[in-house]
């Protein structure tokens, strides 16, 4: 870490460089922190270290050929990026997805949401100094990775969805394994709660820290758990239903200010714990109501969507994950733009960092759940 002492006649300010490889920055991400003692004047995020030009690549790929690249948008939200892209192309093509595929999509998405929140919660606790909960949650995520590998062949870059459905049906015994996992995992959430969630030290580190009011959250375009923690009751799954979600019954947790003020770090933490419970509930409903039938609609091998544009969004683990897709009638997209939750989530840090302690910045980054590849694309 390099330190630059900058002093001007009227003020003294220490500029600290945090990152790009700082362990708490969640990927290659850098902050330029202007501090006055322990208090921050502002923290300016510097992103782009993981820019891979995935939007440019889309213009050079065919529609089905871009699907594996969507896996690389965010390594924790692969099913959601798959789904957002697939639904965008389907909307343009006017394809009806078979009911079994819709339920399978919801099933894998919710499983992915649990895996993503496990990493998030684990990282929050680890950033705040508790290592054990991270290991506990990573152990549970390992089971999900095994399930995913049995289903679609890969542990991280699933590439499971296809335009018009999903690539493979569930293997034999897989649903039983999933049920066994749920039976095992639901008590683990309670165990996690008593392990760390209501630990007084953790509460003191997160309660009342970095409060984001609802107005700021909406203005800066925060989405998903971060938005709900600020008291805005909004969930794309419930409010703009897509896929098989209208058939599902679940609650949307909203920030209550349980250990401080609505919109503080603790709300962002505890909402994710609650969302894992709700995901388990949705998974059980999927298991009970998995219809029989096709898993993929008939789509041409080289689809040429009609000229037009579409914005399609799904509720990812980090909130609204949108794809803006323009077709010009050729087999390749004319333009593709990803709207990701982390990008908006990080843009608010400069605004809220004023007056925070340096140690709290770590809590803010962790609870905003920013993932570097998703911002940089």
């Amino acid at each position: 870490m390099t330190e630059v002492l900058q002093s001007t006649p009227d003020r003294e300010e220490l500029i600290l460089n945090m990152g790009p490889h700082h362990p708490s920055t969640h990927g290659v991400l850098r902050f330029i922190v202007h501090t006055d003692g322990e208090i921050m004047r502002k923290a300016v995020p510097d992103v782009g270290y993981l820019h891979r030009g995935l939007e440019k690549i889309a213009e050079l790929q065919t529609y089905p050929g871009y699907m594996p690249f969507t896996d690389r948008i965010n390594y924790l939200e692969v099913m959601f990026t798959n789904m957002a892209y697939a639904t965008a192309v389907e909307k343009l093509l006017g394809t009806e997805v078979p009911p079994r595929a819709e339920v399978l999509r919801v099933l894998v998405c919710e499983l992915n949401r649990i895996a993503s929140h496990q990493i998030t919660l684990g990282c929050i606790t680890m950033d705040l100094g508790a290592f054990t909960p991270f290991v506990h949650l990573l152990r549970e995520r390992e089971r999900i990775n095994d399930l995913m590998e049995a289903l679609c062949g890969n542990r991280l870059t699933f590439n499971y969805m296809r335009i018009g459905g999903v690539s493979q049906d569930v293997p034999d015994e897989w649903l039983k394994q999933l049920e066994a996992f749920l039976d095992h995992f639901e008590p683990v959430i309670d165990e996690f709660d008593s392990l760390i969630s209501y630990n007084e030290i953790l509460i003191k580190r997160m309660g009342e820290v970095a409060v984001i009011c609802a107005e700021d959250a909406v203005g800066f375009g925060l989405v998903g758990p971060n938005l709900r923690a600020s008291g805005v009751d909004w969930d794309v799954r419930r409010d703009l239903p897509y896929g098989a979600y209208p058939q599902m019954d679940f609650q949307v947790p909203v920030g209550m200010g349980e250990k401080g003020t609505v919109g503080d770090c603790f709300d962002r933490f505890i909402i994710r714990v609650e969302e894992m419970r709700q995901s388990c509930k949705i998974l059980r409903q999927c298991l009970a109501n998995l219809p029989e039938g096709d898993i993929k609609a008939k789509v041409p091998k080289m689809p040429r969507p009609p000229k037009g544009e579409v914005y399609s969004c799904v509720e990812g683990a980090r909130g609204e994950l949108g794809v803006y897709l323009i077709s010009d009638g050729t087999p390749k997209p004319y333009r593709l733009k990803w709207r990701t939750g982390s990008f908006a989530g990080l843009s608010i840090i400069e605004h809220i960092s004023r007056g925070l302690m340096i140690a709290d910045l770590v809590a803010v980054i962790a609870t905003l759940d920013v993932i570097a590849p998703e911002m940089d694309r």
Partner: protein
Amino acid sequence: MGSFSEYLANIGRSIVTLGDGLAVTFSYLLRKPFTIQYPDRTEKPVVAMLPERSRGILEIDINVCTGCSICAKQCPIDCIHIEVVKDEETKQRVLKRFDIDVAKCMFCGLCVEACPVSGLRHTHEFEGSMSDVHRLMLSFVDKPQPVAKPAKKDEPAPETKPVGSIVRKLLADWWKPANPTSGGPR
């Protein structure tokens, strides 16, 4: 005085909640461990423990390959290189080159889904680290051979070699000192 009692209460709450957490941690002393010793203390080799659909290094059974090049067209990053030429004497199409660049491959499986004769498939092999990236170009055709004819509807599908055997042989070659016929920059 109030703040002092609050201070003590904080400490008290911290100790109680820490105790709750530690109780969970200690309970794991009595449970079965979840971790395994990788790679050599497992009951079976790790490759054998992977689920059936696991996507490892690609391999092609050239005895069933019809040289249709659909896989190469499907590949989003062009890591499959196929060369089919027509033999002037026998009027047969001859498979001259079938290379897969494992260094580029992203294991998406689109090519395997597209293969009409199921000659191209994912093995469970995943350990193939090399000191030279160019040697990760796997060549499956040693000497040019005529392409296979696609099986007719009533015929049984031609027999393929066991999954993984072809790649395992190539991987074994990798570890020998530089071998001009396997891999190597072209």
